[in-house]
C-alpha cells in the first residue's frame, strides 16, 4: 500500500478564498483560526539538521511564537516550544525535547537563519455530522511561493483523512508534494539545500593534464576559504575558522605534494602566503580547541577541584577574544585581500599549451599514483624505524607524513574505486588519530604550563593552580596512553590487507609478458 498523500501544493492561480469556497461545496468544515505569521528556517552552516532529516522553524505571529522541529519526510512535528527567538547554540536552549534532539546533531555549530517567509495561515477543522473534528487541515499561503496544504490525521479517523486526501487529489486537483516549502524558498534565492559541506568533494577526469587538474583542486579549496571567511571574521562558531584552516592547510599540502606542476616562482610565492595564513589563524584555533575541551577538562578533575578550574575558562575566553580580534584585523587587511585575489586570478588564467615540466604534462591519474605511492612508502619506512625509545620528534615527523598522504588521497579520491579508497582513508585516519593525540596532549600540557605563568599575574587562587596541575597530570597520562597505543595502531594500519590494496591502487604496474 502506498502512503496516503498528506501534503499538497495549490495551483498558483488559486487564492485562499477561492480554495475555501471550493472546499465548502464538498465538505463540512470550520475555520478554527486565521492569521498572518512569519516562518524562519534555521540550520547550521553545514546543514546538519537538514542532513539528519529535520527542519527547524520559528513561527511568529501576533498571537504566538514557537520553535518547532519537523520531520522532513513525514511533516510530523518532533518537538515544539513557545519561544520568541532561536538561540545560537543548542546548549542555550531550555532543558526539554528540543534541546535533547538538537544537541547531538549540532554540537558546536551555531543555528543560522536560512530564509524568512511571510505567510497567512488557516487552521481548518473538517467536521462530521456531530460537528466533531475528524481531520485537521493546515493551509499556508506564502507570498511568491504559492500555497501549501497539510492534512493532520486524527487517531481513529483514518477513513476521514483518506476521504479528504482523495478529494484534494481527485476533485480539487491539488498536487501531492514531498518537498518542503524551504526547498522552494531556497530555489528562489538561487540556492539549494546542502550546498555546503566541510568534506572535500572534487570530481576529476583521470585523463586531465596534471596542471589543469591541480587548478581544479585549488579552486575548490579557495572556494572553501572564501565561503568560510565571513563567518571566521564574525566568529559565528568555531567551525568556520576550522574549515577555513583546513582549506589553507590542504592548499599548502597541495603546493608541496603535487610537485612541479607550476613554475617554482609561483609555488614559492603562494606557499609563503598560505604558510602565513596558517600562522595568523593558529592561536585562535588553539584557544577554540581548549574551550571546546573545557567540559572534558573539568570532568577529568576530582569533584572537589571542579569548580576551582573556572578561572581558567575565564582566562581562555578572554585570550580567545583577543586573538580573534587580531585574526579579524588580518583578514580585513587589504594586503591579504590582494594576495588572495592574485591567487584566484592565477587559478583562472589559462595554462600554456604545454605544461611547465614533465610532471605537469602527465595525466592527473598518473601523477596521483606516483605521489601517493611514494608518500605511502615513505610513511611505512618512517614508521618501521620507530621503537619504544624513539624521541617524540620522530613521531611528530611521522604524523606530518601521514597528513600529506591523507590530503593526497582525499584530493584524488574520485580517481579510485570508492569502497577501496574510502577503506584506506579510514584506516589511515585511525592511525593518524593516535599520532594526533600524542602530539595534541603534549601541546596542551605545555600550553597549560604557559597559561599558569600568565595567570599568576591575575591573582588567581592557589586551588586553581592545583586543579591545573592535576589537569597536566591527566593530559600526561593520556599522552602516555597514546604513545603506548602506537604499536597496536600501526600494526592495524600496516596489515597485509591494507598493503595489498595500497599496492593495487597506486603502485606502478609491471606488465608480465606471457611466454
Amino acid at each position, binding site marked *: 500500500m502506498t502512503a496516503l498523500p498528506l501534503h499538497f501544493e495549490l495551483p498558483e492561480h488559486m487564492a485562499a478564498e477561492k480554495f475555501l469556497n471550493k472546499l465548502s461545496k464538498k465538505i463540512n468544515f470550520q475555520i478554527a483560526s486565521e492569521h498572518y505569521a512569519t516562518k524562519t528556517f534555521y540550520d547550521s552552516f553545514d546543514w546538519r539538521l537538514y542532513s539528519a532529516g529535520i527542519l527547524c522553524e520559528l513561527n511568529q505571529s501576533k498571537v504566538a511564537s514557537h520553535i518547532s522541529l519537523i520531520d522532513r519526510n513525514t511533516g510530523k512535528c518532533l518537538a515544539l516550544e513557545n519561544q520568541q527567538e532561536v538561540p545560537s547554540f543548542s546548549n542555550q536552549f531550555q532543558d526539554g525535547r528540543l534541546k535533547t534532539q538538537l544537541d547531538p546533531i549540532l554540537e558546536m555549530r551555531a543555528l543560522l537563519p536560512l530564509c524568512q517567509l511571510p505567510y497567512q495561515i488557516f487552521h481548518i*477543522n473538517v467536521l462530521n455530522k*456531530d*460537528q*466533531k473534528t475528524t481531520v485537521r487541515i493546515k493551509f499556508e499561503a506564502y507570498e511568491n511561493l504559492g500555497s501549501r496544504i497539510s492534512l493532520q490525521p486524527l*487517531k*481513529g*479517523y483514518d477513513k476521514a483523512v483518506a476521504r479528504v486526501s482523495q478529494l484534494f487529489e481527485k476533485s480539487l486537483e491539488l498536487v501531492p508534494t514531498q518537498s518542503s516549502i524551504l526547498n522552494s524558498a531556497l530555489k528562489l534565492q538561487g540556492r539549494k539545500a546542502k550546498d555546503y559541506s566541510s568534506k572535500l568533494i572534487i570530481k576529476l577526469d583521470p585523463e586531465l593534464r596534471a596542471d589543469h587538474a591541480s587548478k581544479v583542486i585549488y579552486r575548490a579549496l579557495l572556494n572553501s576559504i572564501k565561503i568560510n571567511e565571513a563567518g571566521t571574521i564574525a566568529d559565528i562558531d568555531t567551525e568556520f575558522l576550522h574549515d577555513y584552516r583546513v582549506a589553507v592547510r590542504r592548499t599548502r599540502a597541495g603546493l608541496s605534494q603535487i610537485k612541479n606542476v607550476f613554475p617554482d616562482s609561483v609555488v614559492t610565492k603562494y606557499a609563503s602566503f598560505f604558510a602565513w595564513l596558517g600562522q595568523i589563524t593558529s592561536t585562535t584555533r588553539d584557544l577554540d580547541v581548549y574551550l571546546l575541551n573545557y567540559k572534558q577538562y573539568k570532568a577529568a578533575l576530582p569533584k572537589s577541584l571542579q569548580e576551582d578550574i573556572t578561572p581558567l575558562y575565564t582566562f581562555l575566553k578572554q585570550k580567545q577574544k583577543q586573538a580573534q580580534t587580531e585574526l579579524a584585523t588580518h583578514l580585513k587587511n587589504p594586503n591579504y585581500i590582494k594576495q588572495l585575489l592574485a591567487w584566484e586570478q592565477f587559478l583562472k588564467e589559462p595554462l600554456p599549451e604545454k605544461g611547465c615540466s614533465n610532471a605537469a604534462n602527465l595525466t592527473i591519474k598518473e601523477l596521483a599514483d606516483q605521489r601517493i605511492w611514494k608518500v605511502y612508502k615513505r610513511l611505512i619506512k618512517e614508521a618501521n624505524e620507530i621503537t619504544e625509545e624513539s624521541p617524540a620528534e620522530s613521531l611528530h615527523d611521522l604524523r606530518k607524513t601521514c597528513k600529506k598522504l591523507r590530503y593526497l588521497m582525499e584530493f584524488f579520491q574520485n580517481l579510485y574505486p570508492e569502497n577501496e579508497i574510502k577503506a584506506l582513508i579510514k584506516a589511515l585516519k585511525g592511525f593518524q588519530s593516535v599520532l594526533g593525540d600524542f602530539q595534541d596532549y603534549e601541546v596542551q600540557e605545555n600550553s597549560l604550563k604557559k597559561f599558569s605563568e600568565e595567570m599568576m599575574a591575575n591573582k588567581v587562587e592557589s586551588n586553581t593552580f592545583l586543579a591545573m596541575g592535576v589537569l597536566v597530570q591527566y593530559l600526561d597520562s593520556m599522552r602516555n596512553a597514546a604513545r603506548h597505543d602506537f604499536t597496536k595502531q600501526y600494526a592495524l594500519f600496516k596489515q597485509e590487507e591494507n598493503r595489498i590494496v595500497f599496492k593495487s591502487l597506486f603502485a606502478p604496474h609491471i606488465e608480465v609478458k606471457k611466454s
Partner: protein
Amino acid sequence: MKVIATYNIKGGVGKTSTAVNLAYLAAQSGYRTLVWDLDPQGASSYYFRVKPKIKGGSKELIAGERELDGLIKATDFENLDLLPADFSFRNLDLVLDTRKKPTQRLKKLLQPLSDSYDFIFLDCPPNISLLSEAIFETSDILLSPIIPTTLSLRTLEQLKTFIKENKLKGLKLIPFFSMADRRKKMHREIMETLSEKHPDILQTAIPYASDIERMGLERMPLGGYTNKSRSTEAYQSLWQEILNAIK
C-alpha cells in the same frame, strides 16, 4: 502512566463531568491523556461527540481480540484521546465472569498503552460489581465525587470498608465534594463536619453550577466553551490538589 478512576456506587454524582474536565486540564498542561468511557450510557463519549460504539463490542474487547489502541479516537483537543463506550458494556460483568482472573483483566488490557499516555481516566458506571473490582485492581487512584448528603456519606464509608476488606493496597481513595450547593444549609453543614471526620477529603469542592450542566448542550469539556468561571477555577484547583496528592 497513572490510572485514575472516577467512581461512586451511586449514580448522578458528577463522575463523568469530573473525568472529562480533569482529563481536559491534564491534556492542556501537556500530559498525554486518555478517557475510557466504561459506562454503557456513553455520557463522556457524548461530551466528546464520539459515537458510543466499538467494533466487536465488550466480548471481543475483554477477550483481548482487539487491541485497545485500534479503538481509540482523538478528541477535538490536543493530547486528549477517548476510548468510546459501547452499549454492550451493560454486559461487561457477565463477559468478565467468563474469564480466568476477571479482576486482572482491565489491567492486562491497559498494559500496552503505558508508554503512550501519562494519565488514563476511567469513567465508571455506578454500582459495585465484578467490573468495579476489576477497575479497583487497575487504578492507582479512585477519585470519588460525593454530594454532601447523609446518604452519600454512608456510601463513602461502604467504599472504604470494601477497599480495606479486599486489601487493595495499591489503590488510593481520594474523595471530594461534588455538586455542592452553598445556598443549601445542609450541604454547608455536612461539608464542615465531614472534613473534620474524614481529613482525606480534598479541600476543593466542585459547585453545583449551570455552566457545568451546559456541557450536555455544548458537547465539550467546560474549558472548551468557558474561559474563566467559578467552576473552571474549582476544577483547576481540584486537579492541582490531585497532582499534589500523587506527587
